[in-house]
């Protein structure tokens, strides 16, 4: 039974690491679309700050930042997934979810 469990989760680990290797290029591509600040835990965008983004930044600072720092260098292709995950996990309102999405992927 223990061996079976190990095999299962070894498979999970394998998929995780394999995906990480395959998608490294995608992750690097995404970094070109964003300009990370040199502060390490803040994400600033190359676009001028617009109202929608400022609202999204406020949502991030008030909600997400209560628990964790901003992850760096993620792909914009998962911005919607992150926003939805945060909506469920942090009980964000629908409006805050949209604002957060604009901040993560303007």
């Amino acid at each position, binding site marked *: 039974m223990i061996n079976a469990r190990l095999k299962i989760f070894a498979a999970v680990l394998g998929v995780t690491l394999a995906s990480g290797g395959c998608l490294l290029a995608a992750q690097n591509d995404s970094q070109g679309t964003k300009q990370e600040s040199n502060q390490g835990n803040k994400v600033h965008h190359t676009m001028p700050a617009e109202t929608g983004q400022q609202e999204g930044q406020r949502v991030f600072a008030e909600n997400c930042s209560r628990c964790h720092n901003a992850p760096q260098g993620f792909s914009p292709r*998962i911005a919607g997934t992150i926003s939805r995950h945060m909506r469920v996990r942090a*009980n964000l*309102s629908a*409006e805050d979810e949209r604002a957060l999405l604009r901040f993560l992927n303007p």
Partner: protein
Amino acid sequence: MPNRRSASIVFLSLLGLFGTAAAQDTPLLSGGIAFVTNTTGGKTTYIPLIQPLAAVPLGNHFMVESRAIVLEQFTPNSTGYDHSHFAALTYLQGDYIASRHLTVVGGSFLLPFGTYNERLTPLWIGNFQDESLAEPIGQMGSGIGLGGQVRGSLYSSARTSFSYSAWFSARSANQQFSSRRSSGGRGSFYFPEQRLEIGASYGRLLQGTHENFVGAYLWWQTGDGGFRVRSETMRGEHAYGYWFEGDYRPLHDESGPVNFMRRFEPVFRMNQTFRIDNAASDGVPAQNTQQADFGLDYNFPHNTRILSSYSRQFSPAGNVNIWETGMVYRFLFPAWKGH
């Protein structure tokens, strides 16, 4: 056994079967990889571990998410090392966003009692490796529910918001989805201008002793998020306790350049538990215990942190020193390379 295999197959399948996701809604893989050490009373353990998380949106209203943990624990002995391993799904849940104010959750989920279980158990988030001493109170043994949950933001404005969660869990002796029959909920107010959140939780164990649990919490942070205070108290019929934690994140102060010193993050936590009786085996220390945790974390660029702490635990059973160190890397990327 078949249940565990099925759950794992689901976990893996979700990563690759939904290739039609919109450009921003690609399934993601996230999580943390860490190597941590713990020395309690002179006895040291070394633990490499990985905590992967998958989130898969399906259409505009559904999402499936899951988190697992795999670790190996090494303990030195006279001839080498003893070691043991542990691997398990932490949760596997489906979310249906039914309306602006309602999300329905089904499956195996983290119990929304208090704050620690849902918010701080990811190893890439928590400031300490260990949970607080009082955390087991109200978590129904495993901290996991198997059943349904409703949650959402009932009201939200620029000045205040109110969010809620309520669950019902069935009893399950399945090794992978162990849970107790219980119900409960949590409600909280958040005041954005003051960055203040206050909330309360209630839980009722619906098997065995039918025990009630209540809890309350207060979180606050400064306007720039540089200083945070988190606190929580909880009470059951056999024990009660509290914890509070403060940390200072100089990186959130944008007034100056980033340098070596500003990446440090000092942390302090106080825990205390009180025994009413020893009629239940609930994970809380068997005798009144207090513990002070002094931590110093370091935030590298690229999602990497060093966690270190010294704790002094005071108990009639004996006082001990606890030293912990660890390095954590957080990963976050799409589940496949797309357009």
